[in-house]
């Protein structure tokens, strides 16, 4: 039977864009609904206590935007993305195209979250620097999510549990620093930005490590659906 005239690379790109793009859209919608619901719900609760409505909405939006960023690796990539690998490969997707497919999903999700939060931040009068920190969070999240996904694929539920615990510990640690307004957040917001660049490098390195791990894991992966 003759295959359609599309080149093989073009065919790979189109099928991946459709499959992984759809998964990213679905996950993003799930995130947005959570953020909007909680922002609205929590703002209403605070309003009844007599606080400034707009400021409260802005505060709540930022809190849940951060939560959405934290959910990116755990729920977005690990929970929604990883199961798609087996499905795509069961339909004959190559390992190499599946590696970039899942990364495409992760980055598409991160970009959408960034744009959504950027618009919300702008509407609520937030600072440009805050968006810089948020970008750092998302890049770190993509790398962390990819590594978590690899661990759960390699070691099953034990790997998933271990990475979830590690990630939660890291997120709580980061959260404590954030809440305490310790050195990290002050330096990040400061003029010098001493830590911003090194942290960005760490985040990029995490992403590179994640991509390499996908390559290693998927080269020996046995498809299961």
């Amino acid at each position, binding site marked *: *039977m*003759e*295959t*359609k005239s*599309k080149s*093989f*690379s073009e*065919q*790979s790109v*189109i*099928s991946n864009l*459709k*499959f992984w793009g*759809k998964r990213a859209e679905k996950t993003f919608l799930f995130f947005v609904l959570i953020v909007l619901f909680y922002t609205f719900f929590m703002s209403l609760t605070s309003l009844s206590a007599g606080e400034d409505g707009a400021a409260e909405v802005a505060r709540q939006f930022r809190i849940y935007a951060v939560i959405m960023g934290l959910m990116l690796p755990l729920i977005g990539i690990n*929970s*929604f993305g990883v*199961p*798609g690998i*087996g*499905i*795509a*490969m*069961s*339909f*004959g*997707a*190559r*390992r*190499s*195209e599946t590696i970039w497919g899942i990364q495409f999903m992760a980055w598409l999700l991160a970009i959408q979250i960034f744009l959504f939060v950027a618009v919300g931040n702008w509407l609520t009068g937030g600072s440009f620097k805050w968006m810089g920190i948020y970008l750092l969070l998302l890049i770190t999240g993509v790398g962390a999510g990819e590594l978590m996904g690899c661990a759960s694929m390699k070691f099953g539920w034990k790997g998933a549990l271990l990475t979830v615990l590690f990630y939660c510990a890291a997120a709580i640690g980061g959260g404590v620093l954030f809440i305490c307004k310790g050195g990290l957040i002050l330096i990040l917001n400061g003029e010098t930005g001493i830590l911003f660049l090194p942290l960005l490098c760490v985040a990029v390195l995490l992403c590179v490590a994640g991509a390499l791990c996908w390559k290693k894991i998927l*080269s*020996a*992966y*046995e*498809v299961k*659906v």
Partner: protein
Amino acid sequence: MSTLVCSNISKKYGEKEVLKNVNLTLEKGKIYGLIGRNGAGKTTLLSILSAQNPATSGEVTWEGEKVWENRKALNHICFSRELVPSASNNGVGTMKVREYLQAASYYYPNWNQALAEELVKKFELDVKQKIAKISKGMLSMVTIIVALASKADFTFLDEPVAGLDVVMREYFYRKLLEEYMETGRTFVISTHIIEEAANVFEEVIFVKNHGILLKENTEHLVGRCVRVSGPAEAVDLATAGMEIHQVETIGRSKGVTVLLKEGEQIAKSPELQLQPVNLQNVFVALCGLEE
């Protein structure tokens, strides 16, 4: 002629060897029955043939080209896996039937949407249902739809009729033959319901002891298999030196299944009863429990 060849395929899971030096050639335009007992390695073999599972050693080629990571070759191969959905993760179980079929259509370049829709209608499948919520028979229907609508030259089905009622099983085999006649595709069907499918299989492949026991034209195989029964001495005399299986002795009577080689014949005797056997009996004789 287009062929899919696996050469010296071995697969180990840790220390456990599931396939050992398997050599197999699948030709285009045939319906093969892949038959073996549970755990014989049928699914592993199919998944290696379709590059869904890396072999420990050996290679699979399509028209001389390696199948592994080869988009050109993979476009011609479809392994419609038996679905084992779970609602607890965000995998196949949480997808709606429509979404699953749509995802399949993204990857198979010759996907026939009209055929997929026709089959959905015929099977009365509710495409809005989540895969984790549908019955085992309906899961089989979904895998059948993917297999047939993929229009891949080499299509593998793993237990396609599991859970299907007799009406749908008949419909499936009819549709399969229709598709085969129209397109000349190759189908490899792994099944435990042998007798029902025996008429459909042009060739059968028996999997035993981590390898291919035989690959033969179904009619020819059944034709050279015969059940011989009668007094033990007469049976022993008539079948001496022949390949004997499934020996049953009751008192002084004996029954054996003989797999005749080219040119061999059972000498006719009034004491002996010679009975033809069906494919299922051939399989039981060759791959059944060893007493």
